[in-house]
């Protein structure tokens, strides 16, 4: 049985943060990504303090005002206002909370479920493995966005349901990764040693084997993080994600789509926010991979 993750076998436990940071910081893009991400995180946490207005305060005297550099702008609204007179900048700032929250929640959900299933399948093999892997095959046979759409249609449109759907769609990747890693690690000496010294299944699975697959898992989690944000935005765009007036970026984009000709800024900024966030996370992901994957370090 060929493993789906040939790199796993050679991954050694990270021998210290210092080494990790050395390799990570070599990658200029990763550092930029980390900086942007830190700023986003800061903005998200302190959104109420930073945002010039409340995200759902409606200024009915200022509908669809253009950004500050336009002649018709209103100095109160730096990036302009939306169709019901809400400040776009404030909504984007609060939207950062949603996007990051979606990312974290989905990754944690997908990670927990995926790791659990993957460990079970890889450790016990036999019918447990067959059953779990066939279910993963079924999930993977549907295009992810289509499956998420149908799941959201079933659960009802909304942010929370969208997150559940996306987590479900993303978790097979974790499961496959972990299963392959567990199968690779299972017969190695240190595991046999632990087994001989009387470690139980649970201990073997979670405490002995799992930490050794950490590297690829972290990289996969980063990828899933950005994927989750993109998919949530796509669902929002199709009207199946967060529901207005939630200032989620994809939803903002969707509810502003009719203004594409008249007020392009209501469409432009939320999309830009999504792109910047996802790009920052992917840059970090590349850096993490370089730092955690010893094989690429060589090349």
């Amino acid at each position: 049985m060929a493993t789906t993750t040939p790199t796993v076998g050679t991954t050694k436990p990270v021998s210290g943060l210092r080494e990790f940071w050395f390799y990570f910081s070599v990658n200029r893009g990763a550092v930029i990504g980390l900086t942007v991400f830190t700023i986003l995180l800061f903005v998200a946490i302190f959104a109420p303090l930073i945002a010039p207005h409340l995200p759902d305060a409606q200024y009915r005297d200022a509908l669809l005002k253009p950004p500050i550099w336009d002649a018709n702008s209103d100095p109160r609204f730096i990036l302009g206002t939306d169709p019901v007179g809400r400040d776009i900048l404030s909504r984007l700032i609060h939207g950062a909370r949603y996007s990051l929250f979606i990312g974290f929640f989905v990754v944690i959900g997908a990670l927990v479920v995926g790791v659990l299933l993957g460990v079970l399948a890889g450790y016990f093999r036999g019918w447990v493995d067959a059953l779990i892997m066939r279910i993963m095959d079924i999930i993977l046979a549907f295009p992810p966005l289509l499956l998420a759409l149908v799941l959201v249609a079933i659960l009802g449109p909304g942010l929370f349901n969208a997150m559940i759907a996306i987590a479900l769609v993303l978790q097979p990747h974790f499961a496959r990764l972990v299963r392959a890693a567990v199968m690779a690690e299972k017969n190695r000496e240190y595991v046999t040693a632990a087994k001989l010294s009387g470690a139980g299944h649970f201990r073997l699975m979670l405490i002995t084997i799992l930490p050794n697959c950490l590297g690829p898992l972290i990289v996969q989690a980063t990828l899933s993080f950005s994927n989750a944000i993109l998919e949530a935005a796509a669902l929002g765009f199709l009207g199946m994600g967060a529901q207005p007036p939630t200032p989620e970026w994809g939803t903002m984009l969707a509810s502003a789509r009719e203004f594409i000709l008249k007020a392009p800024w209501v469409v432009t900024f939320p999309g830009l926010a999504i792109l910047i966030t996802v790009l920052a996370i992917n840059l970090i992901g590349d850096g993490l991979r370089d730092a955690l994957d010893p094989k690429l370090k060589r090349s």
Partner: protein
Amino acid sequence: MQADNGRLKDQPKQETGLSQLAAQRWAGTPRARPNMLNYILRRVALLVPTIIGISICAFAFVRVLPGDPILAMAGQHGVTPERYEILREQFGYNLPIWQQYFNYLWSVMQGDFGISLATKRPVLTEFMTLFPATIELALSAMFLAVIIGIPAGIFAAVKRGSWFDQFTMGVALTGYSMPIFWWGLLLIIFFSGYLGWTPVSGRIALTFFLRPITGFMLIDTLLYGNWPAFVSALRHLILPAIVLGTIPLAVIARQTRSAMLEVLGEDYVRTAKAKGMSPNRVVNVHALRNALIPVVTTIGLQVGLLLGGAILTETIFTWPGIGKWMIDSISKRDYVVVQSGLLIIALIVMAVNLIVDLLYALINPRIRVQ
């Protein structure tokens, strides 16, 4: 399973960490098997439970969708309770759930995927009418992605660290991070709205009236020998293809680069270099061919993702393909279309993945390992 994966040092590696992770975003990863025939049989046998599972899922999803198929068919006046009962019976919604499932499975096996609630046409007929549009779009997107992505990846790898490498990889990562629905809107605003270079939507200008032969607009227009129509079809295709091709392009460029880098670092390439072979020859003869194997695999594995991307692209460009058909049917609550559409699409994704896996097992020199 050996700890070291039994990797032979003088063979190209199956995949790099990078390419492999990229591939995972799209679908499963390929595997190699010792005995080809045995492998094929096992692969196909494994499909049977998966297919049954998929049909159960497609069936079950639609049963638990909120809303009522019969009310969905009725207009603003609704239907009378008596009529409602008659229709329930007609559609078999009054039967026990397992019986409904077996009835469904039975008719699917006979090639009957049901009748659309909205249009009263067979779902399969609708699918076959719309599928070529999606295929045409997807193939064009892949074509763009491949002819730009592979050379870009190769040059970036060969000129590693240069400004070209950094620029290309920066662009690729941006493309990879792109919310494509937004990207599509931007392109429409700029190229169709502001510059007026490309049409806004549709597959061909309405002045051309060509009855479909193959359903592929580019091929049909050529079969008719209608050059202006061909140009029109091409102009309509270009923006949607760019939008749908953006992410595959980014993935292919990145993967080509890292696969090349990996191969260029291999002993046999170093040996060739040491023997005094010209750098171009090293790249062309040794590195390229081996580096492209994982790339080709990735290309094949992107079908599921392309279909997902097609939903967004077709929605933005009013492209009459199956992506738009599915999302319209979900919002119209055309239960039969959603159910059978899911099933057909999943079967296609599976079939393509199977073919890719088999091809991979065929061409991959590592096949006899283990």
